């Protein structure tokens, strides 16, 4: 069986890691958070979401915390996920890699307007 790859880190996995930085979330909350932080460009379907979660769990970049209710969504119990220290480290290094990339792009003057 081929092993799921995280090098390079797929953008879906990176976005999921970023979504968990501010706290534990369940699947639907992760989907919404990712949609919000990408201005709606990335809407994770259940298959893609849980496939990525599975990959991140196997790599111990996130952890399954517990199952509990989300008061805003009703009485159903939901499984919550938390980013691990390894996940946080990987997210940080990925962000730095992208920042480096951005610096190179700037020096090549291919960017227009103001970019942060």
């Amino acid at each position, binding site marked *: 069986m081929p092993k799921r790859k995280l090098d390079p880190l797929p953008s879906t996995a990176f976005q999921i890691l970023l979504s968990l930085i501010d706290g534990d979330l369940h699947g639907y909350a992760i989907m919404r958070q990712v949609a919000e932080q990408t201005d709606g460009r990335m809407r994770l379907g*259940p*298959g*893609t979401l*849980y496939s990525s979660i599975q990959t991140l769990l196997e790599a111990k970049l996130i952890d399954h915390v517990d199952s509990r209710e989300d008061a805003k969504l009703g009485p159903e119990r939901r499984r919550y996920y938390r980013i691990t220290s390894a996940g946080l480290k990987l997210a940080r290094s990925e962000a730095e890699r992208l920042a480096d990339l951005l610096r190179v792009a700037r020096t090549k003057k291919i960017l227009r307007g103001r970019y942060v």
Partner: protein
Amino acid sequence: MSEKIYAWLLSLYPSQFREAYGSEAMQLFRDRMRDEKSFFPRLRLWLDLIIDLAISIPREYRYSPAAPYAVSVRQGSYGVPVFHFIEGRSLRPGAILFGSALSCLALAIFWVFLSHAGNYVGLGIVTPGQFENDSNVFQSQSQPSDSPNSIRPTDRGEAFTLDVLERLRVIDAAVVILKKYYIDHENAQKMAEVLLAHEKNGDDDAAADGDAFAALLTRQMREVSPDRHLTLDYSPDLLPEHPDRESPEALARYNAVMKQQNCTFEKVEILPNNVGYLKLNSFPDPSACQSTAKAAMASLNGADAIIFDLRDNRGGEPAMVMLIAAYLFDHPEYMYNPRENTTEHSWTRSPVPGNSLADKPAYILTSHSTFSGAEHFSYDLKMLKRATLVGETTGGGAHSGVWHRIDDHFGMGIPETKPINPFSTTDWAEIGVQPNVKVKAAAALATAEKLAQDRLRKK
């Protein structure tokens, strides 16, 4: 139903994935179904799911651990039976190809559906026939807005800009409406082609504002056929999406206004020489004003002549035109109305019991403001030689047939009928009704009184 479909789709995933995340995926699906209820979010949800399935199912099979081939028969979750499912085996290339082709087909169907869904035109939705109610035939937005019968747009204070997108939207909608509703299908096709050709050539770029653009498109359509009843109109105010008076609240509001204004019967009196005088400022809906109309006509029943003052009358309901005209005949009389097909309602319900005005001289006072339904009344009574028109040429409002709203600011008047005009080949559309005696509107009453007096003296 949707849940069952998705539950079935979930069963396409490898069993390991279903066991680990099936219930969570189902929960997520339910959450999205609950939060994305309207048409487009729901459509997007299904598109997301199809794309998600197309991407994630092959991947999950690729990464799922190999298991001994097994065959199981069991009842699937969510009430969906699963038959003889072979677990843990990677999909054959042929199956992946088939799945991809199926996904492409589904996407293509969605695309076709989106392109043809209800003539969708951006933010405005063309709903031809919205104004098809006969009672609205006089109520195009070009009717001056102070008429009690006009549909008043609610000004939401949004600025209107005529950009390329808006122009394309209006032209596309006009083409659809023409092809669907215009009475002459061959000319409709030609007009549609002409509109599109002008647009393609950039001829419409010169139109600086809504009025100019509407006038330009009207001219372009009339290049094919000089039909005065075919118009494309612009309104700076927002056009209502639905006729106001269809709702009970709007009807109650209308009734209240009519009551307050005495159904626009401004003056009902007997002038010197026993000349009856009725100043009527609209032709209100008989459902609200029938009794007022009948009372007014009854109070003039003893007059030797009658003057209808329509100088401030901007139209209204054809039914009220017919109701009042009925008093001027002792037999059912055909009244031509360019906006309605000839039916039994095209004849007056004459004689009116107890009425003695049928043979009395009648005069109609007109002005440049006399419009639409008031012109219907004036034109027919003039053509039937039943009344003498005194005053100015009327406004020329014969917007024909059915009003089709295009968006917040544009609409079309489309002739969908070919009623019989026994009097002439033309009516009052745009040219107005010529009076028999041409005087300034301000002098019309005195002139008509004198005419009546002279006529009564000759008797």
